[in-house]
């Protein structure tokens, strides 16, 4: 049976001289195992996981970036799938716990390979960044909610006058008749010498009848 896990926790129990290994396999399920330090020592002291390293009770192997952890239980071997970085993190946690129980001394510690260290640093950095982001997002959301609530309270107390938006009309851009406009005086100036040929015509009086009709029309309108 294999699980994909990215969260391990190792805790030392000095009274019982045992190691408690917890692996969260889903949001709802955590597997817990009590391990004897001796069963994990070969795993802790391994410097390379290209082959299975550890004991029959607790062993690990990494191929490329993928790693597998095997734990022997009463129901047989349980396998956890993870990245090689996580495997190295687990190894470091177990090493610290073994040191706490006195199972290994400072000199027995095995250095973690440098590329793994870098990977571990990145993993930790990412984790930290993620945590910080989550924390900040939560705080900002909280701040925003508080701010909006305060704003609503204040706005409800304001007496807002309705705004009348006047649509600009084309007519309003025109110059109204009472707009003063400068008209120059003395347009007819002296000192102009000239000669003009005017085309003069005369025609029979065809306007008297129209002038009379207009007069009648106006008189009728006045009487009405």
């Amino acid at each position, binding site marked *: 049976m294999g699980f994909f896990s990215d969260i391990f926790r190792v805790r030392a129990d000095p009274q019982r001289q045992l190691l408690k290994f917890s692996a969260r396999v889903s949001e709802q399920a955590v597997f817990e195992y009590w391990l004897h330090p001796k069963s994990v020592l070969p795993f802790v002291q391994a410097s390379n996981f290209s082959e299975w390293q550890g004991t029959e009770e607790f062993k690990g192997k990494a191929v490329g970036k993928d790693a597998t952890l095997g734990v022997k239980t009463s129901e047989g071997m349980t396998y956890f799938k993870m990245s090689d970085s996580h495997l190295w993190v687990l190894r470091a946690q177990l090493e610290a716990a073994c040191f706490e129980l006195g199972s290994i001394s400072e000199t027995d510690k095995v250095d973690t390979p440098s590329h793994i260290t870098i990977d571990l640093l990145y993993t930790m950095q990412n984790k930290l960044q993620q945590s910080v982001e989550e924390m900040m997002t939560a705080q900002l959301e909280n701040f925003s909610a508080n701010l909006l609530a305060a704003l609503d309270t204040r706005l409800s107390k304001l007496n807002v006058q309705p705004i009348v938006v006047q649509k600009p009309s084309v007519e309003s851009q025109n110059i109204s008749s009472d707009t003063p406009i400068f008209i*120059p005086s003395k347009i007819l100036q002296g000192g102009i010498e000239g*000669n003009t*040929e005017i085309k003069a015509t*005369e*025609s029979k009086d065809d*306007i008297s009848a129209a002038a009379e009709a207009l007069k009648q029309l106006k008189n009728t309108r006045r009487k009405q």
Partner: protein
Amino acid sequence: MSVGLDIGTMNIVSARQQDDKVHTRRIRDAFLDLPLHAKKVLKLSKSSFMQRDGDLLLLGDQALEMAIIFGKEVRRPLSQGLVSPSEIHSLEVLGYLIQEVLGLSADKETCFFSIPAAPVDNLSKDVIYHKGVFERIVTECGYKAIASNEAMAIIFAEAAVEGFSALSFSFGSGMTNIALAFNGIEGMVFSVERGGDWIDGGAARSLGSPQSRLCHIKEVGIDLLAPKNRDEEALTFYYRELINYVLDWVQKEFTKRQLYNVVTRPVPVILSGGTSKAGNFVHLFREEYEKRKKKFSLPISEIRAATDPLNAVAKGLLIQAINEDED
């Protein structure tokens, strides 16, 4: 004595009633710069000119003729029906020309002078300055100056039989003025910024020719129903476009102003102005009107040309001036 004064982009015309006759005086509203040494020749040839300080300006029809000969554009004191702000000489030239056409009055005669309506297709323009300038010039000539719409003047001159009910078009050079009156009451007046100059300009651009030349071709005589060459074809094309443009605006304004209930019987259409003098203009207008007759909201009884297209506005203004003096 009453007098009517039509101030157009192309012509300035005055009209007076005297000895049972109507006397009109007309001068071409155009000028051309000439070198000062040409003055002697102008005097000998009795040409129209004016000189002030160092400027010598050839005036009137001869300015237009010279412009055609030398391939130059003639200068106008009015542009698109209104006082031209870009012409530094415009006020002086206008003042001089009006004084020559009108003459000075010693006893404050009544002078109705024409003004266009504000163009509906260019709302940034108005006629306030234009009206003020001519009011000042006519007053300085010694007259009692009264401004009146030029298209309405056509109705007073040409639609007495119909009780001054008509739709009139004044196809001028700078713009086209339109008026609708019913029983002498003004229903709508407006103008569009297209006229004879727009026709000349459009045809000139499409043919790569000076505008003055196209204007000359137009004025020499053109049959709009039978254009003889490419120049005339181009001019006819723009005439047709202008007619459609003004009819569109009449329909639009008539609908907008909801004049359906005001005009209770069909009214005649009267076509006037220098641009309407082209051969078969009335027929071309009828053709274009017939195409849209079914959709045209304003009931039309007939379409006819003014009896005297060049002088109709001045005569209409004279009728109003006489009426004013008799009141």
